[in-house]
């Protein structure tokens, strides 16, 4: 199982609030898993803890990326090791164009002082933007500044496609998207799907999973996974609602 993102018995808190409680999950490379769960259950927390966000404290547990431990590492090392997080709320970076930002991220992955092939870079960037139906003018806009919700999410997927991570965590990438944008973004993700990437799609709604069909679906509640199944679990959850999860838990 070296070729997996493995999370084992993870306990993490922010301030004095325990959020992740004995959380375990394994995502083999090549698979797409979905996590569904009510608001406030700790889905974004999981994403940020994996990415090394400094505000969270990890009490115990482990997380390995293809066998390499990532907890306690700096966010940039984790990113360069191959973890990508598509943010639920991406930050704005005034004055920095998308083209320069992605370029800086790619250069950070190169050996120091190595030459950068600008021509090949722009050719690839433009091709990926075409695939995401993003206007060329986007390259010279500042990262997320004045973007609509949909534009922000598309920009996250563009970065993912350019940085080619080993594992990607997509946090509520469907929120704020209309149907057309949802389809385009999903196509982008599906395009990347393959044996060399593992994906964790976090969502509140089943809708996204009609476009990005997952291999496994997990239901998260109160800081850990309470139920796992195939793609039909998402449909069942949508039909029965989150109350069903709560009741089932109460009776268990």
């Amino acid at each position, binding site marked *: 199982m070296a070729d997996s993102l493995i999370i084992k018995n993870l306990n993490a808190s922010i301030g004095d609030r325990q959020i992740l409680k004995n959380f375990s999950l394994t995502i083999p490379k090549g698979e797409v898993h979905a996590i569904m769960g009510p608001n406030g259950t700790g889905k974004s927390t999981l994403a940020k803890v994996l990415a090394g966000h400094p505000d969270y404290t990890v009490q115990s547990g482990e997380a390995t990326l293809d066998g390499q431990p990532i907890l306690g590492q700096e966010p*940039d090392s984790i990113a360069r090791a191959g973890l990508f997080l598509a943010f639920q709320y*991406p*930050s704005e*970076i005034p004055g920095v164009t998308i083209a320069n930002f992605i370029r800086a*991220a790619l250069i*950070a992955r190169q050996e120091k002082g190595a030459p950068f092939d600008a021509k090949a870079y722009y050719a690839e960037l433009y091709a990926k933007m075409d695939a995401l139906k993003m206007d060329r003018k986007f390259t010279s806009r500042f990262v997320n500044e004045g973007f609509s919700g949909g534009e922000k999410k598309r920009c996250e997927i563009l970065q993912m496609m350019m940085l080619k991570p080993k594992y990607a965590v997509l946090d509520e990438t469907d929120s704020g998207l209309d149907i057309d944008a949802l389809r385009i973004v999903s196509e982008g993700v599906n395009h990347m799907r393959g044996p060399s990437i593992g994906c964790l799609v976090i969502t509140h709604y089943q809708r996204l999973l009609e476009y990005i069909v997952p291999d496994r679906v997990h239901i998260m509640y109160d800081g850990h996974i309470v139920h796992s199944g195939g793609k039909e679990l998402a449909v069942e959850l949508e039909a029965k609602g989150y109350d069903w999860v709560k009741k089932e838990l109460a009776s268990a």
Partner: protein
Amino acid sequence: MSENDESQAQREAIEVDRTKGDFKYAEDYAFDAGVGLNPQVIDYISKVKGEDPWILEFRQKALKIFSDMPMPTHWATQDLDAINFDAIRYYLAKGQKPVRTWEEVPDDVKETFERLGIPESERKFLAGVEAQFDSEAVYSRMKDELEKQGVIFCGPTEGLRDHPDIFRKWFGKVIPAGDNKFAALNSAVFSGGSFIYVPKGVKVAQPLQAYFRINAENFGQFERTLIIADEGSEVTYMEGCTAPKFETATLHSAVVELVALKGAKIQYITVQNWSANVFNLVTKRGVAEEDAEVRWIDCNIGSRLTMKYPGVVLRGKRARGEVLSIALANDGQHQDTGAKMIHAADETSSNIIAKSISVGAGRSTYRGLVHMPKTLKNCKNNTECDALLINEHSRTDTYPAISVRGQKNSVQHEASVSKVSAEQIFYMMQRGLSEGEAMSLAVNGFVNDLVKEFPMEYSVELKRLIELQMEGSVG
């Protein structure tokens, strides 16, 4: 590739490395005025230079003004009191006459400038270069065709001796010795700097560059620059400054006077990267006559304390003045910078854009002065001050004094303070950038629109200096 990307690629091809300033060579000087300041030191400097009596008199008068004037600590920082004028060496030189080929420059000095990339940039994009090492220029050369057109590019000693008819008229007139305590100090002990004259109608296409290097510890560098652009002429002058890291305080106190006659344009660009023990106290002012333009581009990085407020006196109708400045204050540094616009004729316009970045315990202060008397009409000023704070210890203050009278003039003023948030840094680091890279990207984004106005070579250099500072500031 789009046009933007190509120019970016091109920029990378001609990167100039003046970021590596922290090295020094042994001190062996043929000329040394000793430690401390008194009338004998002034006599020594003047004698070594073989100056006319009127210059010695000018110097001695200035020394008197300097001694009588109090420190401006009632409005400026108390840190000025840390300067011990008795512990400073006021004149150190290896020779008196700059040579005209790099081969003739003494090896250690040549190596200094080679490490800073000067001879290389001269070959690539400059019309002329002057390299000053402590008190005197060691190298000075300008392209032959400019000489044929009558352009003069020399130091103050040669300027006042060989072309008194041109330079004496304006020397000490834009900034009199009594302007402030440090202008007086410079007037007393000035040495090195550039005297430039551009004849009527001559447009110097490539920049002239001066490079000021402090090598000695406990030393004061006091260069003096006077640029006169005759009617309808144009010139761009760039200065770069560095010093090694010293244990004790070192002083840099220059005076720069610009004169743009009718319809002339002067652009003066500074990129300084002083080490953290340098007190950088510089007076810069230009006069713009009818339809003339004076533009200061001023980038202040490093130093313990910088006090500098470039100004333009808009003396002729339709004259234009501009100050574009960037100041970066890192831990233990204070950038006290700003701009002065004195409107003295109708239809004059001025523009000030000042951006400051405070990192760690760094501190930035903006001081502005815009003066428009009510007797004037159709004058315009635009002032924009933006501050960026990186972490909560840093501090920024803005003092925009705008004295505008009269109904027929217009003034616009905008100020903003923004912060680089921890979330922004995390976002960038999640993409693989180190903390230092993330911070310099944020800073470069902040100054981006202003840097676009700079000549290409300088924007590249500035970007690298910012990166260096940010890397250094990550604990």
